[in-house]
């Protein structure tokens, strides 16, 4: 396993700039999750590290060694594609054995069997090993695709939304499984997802990308509790952070245009009155959709609340995030 460093990476596709001067260190043995909207450069980052694409400028090093001149095979990275690309002319077993049989690894047959058996059991596909890859369901294909990465001992695992096509139960099983694999093997993971739960539960570090730039990099807790911008704040947290005009609840500090309120930053039972628009009982918690001076707010309350739509609730902001007109955070460390 190895540390991956990106130094000032820029990548263009024709006229569009996919990555713009990104520098980042993925520490050895860490689980880094990349967050960002579609087109922010998450997949491009993985492709550059794997060697499938080359950056216009900047340096990438894996394990301290610059990889600019290395082919994808020589970089010894494993990648799970968003589009599960199983080799359709092979069985599941042959798909899993394919990386192990490569001229670079040349794994002995008994070792191949042992590894495939272990991975297949973990991914619950043991009974499908002799099926044609095309005779699988979407979820099974994706598990084989993950398996094809896990049979190896690469320098780094690159995963592009590997769990997004799975059903909820399997997704939560595999989330735990992947995390424990990573911890046991002290493996380095760079993982792209849209799923906040995956980011919060699996990540040791979160990188937030916006329009090809890395805007924040830190632990999930840091990014959640101390976001640098509206954009970064919106990446984590369910329900999503509420962004409202700064003067909605009264005078705001100089230069502040917007305030951000996560559910726990909305104190209930004090302050001005908001109207309850909708109550969603989720079992372990209840979501309140509020209307306050023509602005919608979403917050969380007690699971067994008696509140009903149409009732009034008094609310007050508590230690909100302040943002300037550009969306950048001000008054940090308050």
């Amino acid at each position: 396993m190895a540390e991956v460093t990106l130094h000032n990476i820029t990548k263009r596709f024709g006229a569009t700039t996919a990555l713009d001067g990104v520098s980042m260190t993925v520490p050895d043995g860490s689980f880094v999750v990349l967050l960002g909207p579609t087109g922010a450069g998450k997949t491009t980052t993985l492709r550059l590290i794997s060697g499938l694409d080359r950056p216009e400028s900047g340096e990438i090093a894996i394990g301290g060694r610059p990889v600019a001149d290395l082919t994808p095979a020589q970089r010894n990275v494993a990648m799970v594609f968003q589009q599960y690309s199983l080799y359709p002319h092979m069985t599941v077993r042959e798909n899993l054995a394919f990386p192990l049989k490569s001229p670079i690894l040349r794994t002995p047959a008994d070792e191949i069997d042992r590894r495939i058996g272990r991975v297949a059991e973990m991914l619950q596909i043991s009974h499908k090993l002799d099926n044609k890859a095309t005779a699988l369901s979407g979820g099974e294909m994706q598990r084989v695709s993950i398996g094809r990465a896990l049979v190896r001992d690469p320098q780094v695992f690159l995963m592009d939304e590997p769990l997004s096509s799975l059903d909820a139960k399997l997704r939560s099983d595999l989330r735990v499984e992947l995390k424990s694999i990573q911890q046991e093997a002290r493996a380095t993971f760079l993982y792209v997802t849209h799923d906040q739960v995956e980011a919060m539960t699996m990540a040791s570090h979160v990188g937030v990308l916006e329009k090809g730039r890395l805007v924040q990099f830190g632990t999930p807790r840091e990014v959640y509790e101390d976001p640098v911008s509206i954009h970064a704040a919106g990446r984590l947290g369910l329900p999503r952070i509420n962004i409202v005009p700064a003067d909605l609840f009264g005078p705001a500090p100089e230069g502040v245009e917007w305030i951000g309120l996560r559910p726990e930053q909305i104190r209930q039972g004090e302050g001005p009155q908001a109207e309850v628009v909708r109550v969603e009982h989720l079992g372990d918690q209840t979501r309140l959709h509020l209307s306050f001076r023509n602005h919608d707010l979403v917050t969380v309350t007690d699971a067994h609340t008696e509140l009903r739509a149409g009732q009034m609730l008094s609310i007050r902001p508590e230690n909100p995030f302040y943002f300037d007109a550009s969306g950048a955070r001000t008054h940090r460390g308050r």
Partner: protein
Amino acid sequence: MSDFSVTAASRPQKWIAGILVIGYALITILPLLWIIATGFKSPSDAIAYPPKIVFEPTLEGYVNLFTTRTRQTAEFLAENPPQTWYEAIVAKYDMTIVGPSRFGERFMNSVIIGFGSTFLSVFLGTLAAYAFSRFRIPLKDDLMFFILSTRMMPPIAVAIPIFLMFRSLGLSDTHAGMIMLYTAVNLSLSVWLLKGFIDEIPREYEEAALIDGYTRFQAFTKVVLPQAATGIASTAIFCLIFAWNEYAFAVLLTSGTAQTAPPFIPTIIGVGGQDWPAVAAGATIFLLPVVVFTILLRKHLLRGITFGAVRK
């Protein structure tokens, strides 16, 4: 409720469709059946009018196809009675067999030149098509158009320059010359067809193979080729059919050593009267390799077996 809604065909519709298809198949296959039947007729039955549907089959045509014969006197035949069934057949016409005909060699020439040029066309075509499909090539579109433009006139239109070139290069009447010629003609078809097939194979497979530790060439042979099998098989069939049936260049450029079957078969007719059964027998045998080749590759022609493992 739309005008184009798809519904199951009713029973009478199925019957009508079935009759139409079978009728069409019979009409198209009739000349073929005619040729096959004529090959088993006697010369007089072959030209009988009205045509004989029911006739006494004979291998006369096949014996004449494979042998050269000479007329003998009645005394000679009485002294040398036929030893084998085929000698007996020719003895009926006061003839004896003096040796094999050239049909066997000509047929082998067809096999060597036809399959040789097919192999080369498909081999070179696959490599070129892969490059055109996957790599950034300067002037790619112009090159593809240029390749296609070689088919914008019938190949025979350039017969005279090719004839002169072959003569000065010493390629006239050689296997190598004919293989090169047919490969050159087929290559544009092969590149275009195969590029279409390879374009449809998602790049993700090769990218996965690159990351799985393989070189680009290994990814090509282990991942792309197996999935292009369908396209390669159908391209090979098209190339073989062209090279196998080609007549004009074969007449022009070959006369002996490298002559293929198509220009040879009509010459049979001149030996000892109009021997239609022998010509028909030659045509029947000539058909077989393409039919067998097509049947062997038939399963690869069924498309869609390898597609569908990439989420689109």
